C-alpha cells in the first residue's frame, strides 16, 4: 500500500489521520457555530433594543403615564409627553378585527382542506394559500389603500376609508395562511382511529368534524389562532398604510361604543413612521440626555413592549403545541 519505506510512510499516515480529525472538528464546530449564532442573534437583537431604550427607562419613564395616557407628543417643543395608550388600543383593535375576519375563514378553510375535499383540490388550495403568504406586506397595504379605502367609503359613507375596519380586514387576510396551515396540520394529526370509530357508529361527515375532530384538535387550533394573533400584532407596513395613522382611541361613551370606522395608529406603525426622524443623540458630559434624545429611546421602549407581547403569544402557542405532542 505504501510505496515509501519506514519512517516516511508512518509520518504520512499519521499526517493523513491528523488532517482527517482536524477537518472533522472544523465541520463540527462550524455547524455548532451556525446553531449557536441563531441564539446569539436573538439575544443580540434583544440586547440592542434594550440598550437603546434603557436611558428612557431610567430617566423619562413613568409606567403609569406611558401605558395609560393617550398623549403622544414626543416632539413637542414645550411639553413632551410619551403615552402609548392610543397605540396599544390601536394595535389591539386592529388585531381583534383581524381575528374576527381571519379565524372563521381560516378554520373553515382548514377543515375543508383537511376533511372535505379531494386530493387534487387540497393540493390546489394549499398552493393558493402559500401564494397568499408570499404577497409582500406593502402590496397588501396598497390593496387597502386603493381598493378597501374607496369600497369602505362607498359602502358606509364614512368620510375616510383608512381605519380599524380596513386595516383589520387586510391584516386578517394576511394572517389567514399561517392559521390555515397550522389548523390543517392540527386537524390531520387527529388519529385515524377516532375517525374510524365515529364513522363506524354512523356519524355523518359534519357530525364527525363537530363532535370528534374539532374537540380532539382544539389545542392545535388554539395555537394556530395565537400564531395568527402574533402575526397581526407584528404587522407594520400594511397597517401603516391602512389605519389612517392617527392617534385616536376608537371607543367612546356613545353607542356603538367601539367605532370600527375610526382611524387609529398601531405600535408598529409608530416605530416605522417616526424612527427616521427621531435623532439618536449621545449622552451629555454630566450623564443626562438632551430632551430630544428621549423620542428615539421611547420608540425602542415601544419595541420592547412589542417584543414582550409577541414573545408571550408565541411561547404560549409553542407550549400548547408541545403539550399536544407529549400527549400522543
Amino acid at each position, binding site marked *: 500500500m505504501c510505496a515509501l519505506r519506514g519512517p516516511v510512510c508512518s509520518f504520512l499516515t499519521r499526517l493523513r489521520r491528523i488532517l482527517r480529525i482536524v477537518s472533522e472538528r472544523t465541520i463540527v464546530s462550524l455547524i455548532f457555530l451556525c446553531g449557536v449564532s441563531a441564539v446569539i442573534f436573538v439575544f443580540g437583537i434583544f440586547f440592542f433594543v434594550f440598550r437603546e431604550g434603557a436611558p428612557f427607562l431610567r430617566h423619562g419613564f413613568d409606567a403609569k403615564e406611558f401605558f395609560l395616557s393617550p398623549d403622544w407628543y414626543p416632539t413637542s417643543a414645550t411639553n413632551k409627553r410619551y403615552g402609548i395608550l392610543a397605540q396599544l388600543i390601536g394595535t389591539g383593535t386592529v388585531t381583534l378585527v383581524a381575528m374576527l375576519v381571519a379565524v372563521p375563514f381560516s378554520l373553515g378553510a382548514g377543515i375543508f382542506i383537511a376533511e372535505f375535499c379531494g386530493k387534487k383540490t387540497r393540493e390546489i388550495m394549499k398552493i393558493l394559500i402559500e401564494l397568499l403568504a408570499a404577497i409582500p406586506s406593502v402590496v397588501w397595504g396598497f390593496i387597502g389603500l386603493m381598493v378597501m379605502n374607496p369600497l369602505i367609503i362607498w359602502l358606509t359613507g364614512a368620510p375616510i376609508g383608512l381605519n380599524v375596519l380596513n386595516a383589520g380586514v387586510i391584516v386578517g387576510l394576511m394572517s389567514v395562511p399561517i392559521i390555515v396551515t397550522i389548523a390543517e396540520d392540527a386537524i390531520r394529526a387527529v388519529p385515524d*382511529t*377516532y375517525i*374510524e*370509530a*365515529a*364513522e*363506524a*357508529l*354512523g*356519524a*355523518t361527515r359534519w*357530525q364527525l368534524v363537530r*363532535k*370528534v375532530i374539532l*374537540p*380532539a384538535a382544539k389545542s392545535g387550533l388554539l395555537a394556530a389562532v395565537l400564531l395568527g394573533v402574533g402575526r397581526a400584532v407584528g404587522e407594520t407596513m400594511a397597517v401603516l398604510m391602512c389605519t389612517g395613522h392617527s392617534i385616536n382611541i376608537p371607543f367612546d361613551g356613545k353607542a356603538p361604543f367601539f367605532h370600527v370606522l375610526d382611524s387609529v395608529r398601531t405600535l408598529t406603525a409608530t416605530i416605522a413612521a417616526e424612527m427616521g426622524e427621531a435623532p439618536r443623540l449621545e449622552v451629555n458630559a454630566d450623564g443626562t440626555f438632551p430632551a430630544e434624545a428621549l423620542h428615539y429611546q421611547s420608540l425602542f421602549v415601544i419595541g420592547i413592549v412589542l417584543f414582550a407581547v409577541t414573545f408571550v403569544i408565541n411561547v404560549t402557542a409553542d407550549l400548547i403545541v408541545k403539550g399536544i405532542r407529549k400527549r400522543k
Partner: protein
Amino acid sequence: MAANQQHAEYAIETSNLNLWYGDFQALLNVCTKIKAGIITGLIGPSGCGKTTLLRCFNRMNERFENVRVEGSVEILGSNIYDPEVSVVELRKRVGMVFQRPNPLPLSIYDNVAFGLKVHSPWRSLYKDDIDAAVEKALEEVFLLDSVKDQLHRKGTDLQLEQQQKLCIARLLPLKPELLLMDEPCSALDAAGTEAVEDLLLSLRGRYTIVIVTHNMAQARRISDECIYMLNGKLIEHGETSDIFLNPKDKRTEEYIEGRYG
C-alpha cells in the same frame, strides 16, 4: 311470511362478493349465509381477507379510496350495496368493534351516548333517556360497577380491557342487529381476553355476532359456526365442532393442525 322467516334465520347473505384494492383482488366470489343470533368465527391465516370481508358488512371498506366491490351483501333481507341504502342507517344497525380498542377522546358517558346523539334529530333526546341508555349499556358489558362513579373520566384513560368493553357498550344503545368484531382480544392480556369472551357469550342470542380471530382456541371456545378463509376465498363454512374435528377440506385441516398460518 316465508320470506320473513328466512330473514330471521340468516343475518347476512353474500353472493359472488368480489373486492379489489386497486388491482389486487382481496375477495374472490365469496358466497355464504351467516345465521342470526349466533356467534360466527372468521378464521384463516394472516392476510387472507378476514378483515376485508368483515368490513364489507358495514361498508367500512369505502373509507379507502381505491376499493371496488362487486356482488351483493344482504343484511336482514336487503342488499346493503344498493345505491339507495343509507350508510348512516346501515352502521346504526351493524356495529363494529376494532382490533385495537378505540374509544373516542370523550368521557365514558359521552362515548356511550355518542351513537344515540348522532342518530337522533337535534333536541329530540331527553337527558333521562340518555342516562338510562348509558347505564343499561354499561351494565350489559359488565362495566357499570367499576366506572359508575367516574362516568366523566376520559374513555381513553381506562385500562385496555375496559376500553374494549366500552367500545362494545357504545354500540348497544343503538340496538344493533349485528355486531362485527375484528380480533377484539388481540390487544388484551389473558385476563382481559377471558373477560371479553365472557361478555361475548353473554351477548350471544341477543345479537348476531361475527368475530374475526387469529386464535384457534378462542374460535373453539366462543363460536357456534366458523368460516375458514384462504387467499380471499371462502374455503369452508360449518359448525365449529365440524370444522375443528372433521373438516371437509384438506386446506382447512392443514390450517387447524397448524401447518400454516
